[in-house]
């Protein structure tokens, strides 16, 4: 296991300067994520345009992996529709949990998370933001169906 593989420059950069950080005031939905084992907490806000994420922001306290993963996720999903996001999450999850998985070019900067698979204890740090995003999207779906 190589530390440099986990803490790549992209990860360290997004940890130091997380993108899309801070509340989204005109959000359609939000969800809170909490990892009780390590105390990581984050909130994800989304504004939707039909099935598409028009804007997304997050805020929270967590380790470098969790913060960078959330930051990279917001960049990656902005403008994408729900189906594409679901497919993307499947890809990311495979990348995080399979050491032999190689990063597909379509993952873009998310490929920087590949090193996480060598550190099984840290996988949940990287997936917290995705679970939280899914919860926010589910909630927005609920809101649509109840209308």
């Amino acid at each position, binding site marked *: 296991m190589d*530390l440099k593989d*986990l803490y790549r420059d992209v990860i*360290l950069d997004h940890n*130091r300067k997380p993108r899309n950080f801070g509340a989204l005031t005109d959000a359609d939905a939000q969800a809170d994520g909490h990892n009780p084992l390590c*105390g990581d907490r984050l909130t994800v806000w989304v504004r939707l345009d039909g099935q598409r994420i028009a804007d997304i922001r997050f805020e929270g306290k967590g380790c*470098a992996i969790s913060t960078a993963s959330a930051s990279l996720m917001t960049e990656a999903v902005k403008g994408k529709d729900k189906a594409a996001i679901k497919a993307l999450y499947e890809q990311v999850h495979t990348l995080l949990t399979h050491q032999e998985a190689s990063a597909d070019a379509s993952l873009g900067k998310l490929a920087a998370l590949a090193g996480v698979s060598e*550190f099984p204890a*840290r996988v949940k740090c990287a997936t917290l933001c995705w679970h939280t995003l899914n919860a926010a999207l589910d909630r927005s779906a609920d809101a649509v169906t109840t209308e």
Partner: protein
Amino acid sequence: MNAVSAVTAPYDAERVRADFPILAQQVNGHPLIYLDSAASGQRPLAVLRAVERYETHHHSNVHRGVHALSQAATEAFEGARERVRRFLNARSTREIVFVRGATEGINLVAQSLARPRFGPGDEILITGLEHHANIVPWQMVCEQSGCALKVAPIDRRGEVDIGRLLELLTARTRLVAVAHVSNALGTIVPVKRIIEAAHSSGALVLVDGAQAVPHGAVDVRELGCDFYAFSGHKLYGPTGIGVLFGREELLEEMPPWQGGGDMIRTVSFEKSTYNELPWKFEAGTPNISGAVGLAAAMDYLESLGLEAVAAHEQRLLALATAELERMPGIEIIGTAAHKAAVLSFTLRGCHPHDLGTILDSEGVAIRTGHHCAMPVMTFFDIPATARASFGCYNTEADVRALVTALGKAREVFG
């Protein structure tokens, strides 16, 4: 736990380390530096051998058969109880109940003493530095019985605010439950003073000694506590075995909390009568080999000398504290005047979880997280800390390895 006095004989930590086979391994290409004894201590060969000897020569069920093995097992188990009695200087083995660990000991008192006796208007007093094991069982009892939970706060150093504790100790207080040593901060709590105050006010006292027993001699008669709970695995013994000491008069009055075999005298479908102390509280086949291992751990620790071990750990704590205080960006969480060998800290710009991973890659095992003390983290307004804790087998070289690995973390996150 007494203050450490001057050491007479030199303490050979390298020799002690050699007694622990698990420590002679490489982790991630580096020699293992184990700094997580506050979570669980490792076992010396003497404990492993005692358990093996029991399992290969003496095992059967206790308190039953007339055959040789059953008698050998009973002797081993009850001999372990006598060993624990001496370790705690309790009056009688009737006061020594074997449980799974400190957590179960506390739950036993909560369910068997507090639940049937306490009600609305009664209060249980704990402190702000408790482990979840000394919070949640009382919250459950409060829900069940209608009594209230009060919390004496801690200050910025991580010491219990004794003034506030004394104010909260009123005629309504039925029980004070307090840690002897904080697992998250290392604070040694002045439990004797709290016990005296509680008793003058008519309250009983349970001491959670999980973190205290490995770091100094505990004398329950000298302390005057009503209950004292601890776990075997933090004392270099096996997991799944622990002890609840309770004053005989109190245990006598308490109903059993689990029913089953071994805890009864007679059973009929109309009514059962219960066994005498301490077996009244030990339903079912106990963890016999665990008790044997725990007794061996006590023998081992006393052969090193509890005072000598404590003095050695204090030297390591002082050295590590001085080194970490010099490192820019490090903040030590828990700066009580009297601490056991537990050092909690944060590194600016580096989450404790990242720190734990980086240190692990250097072979240095520390604990990161909230240490089952979320209210302590909330008090200091941090999500988590990194915690290095020292045991009888740690050396000055281990402290240096910690410092070097922290330097590496600062490089990565610099």
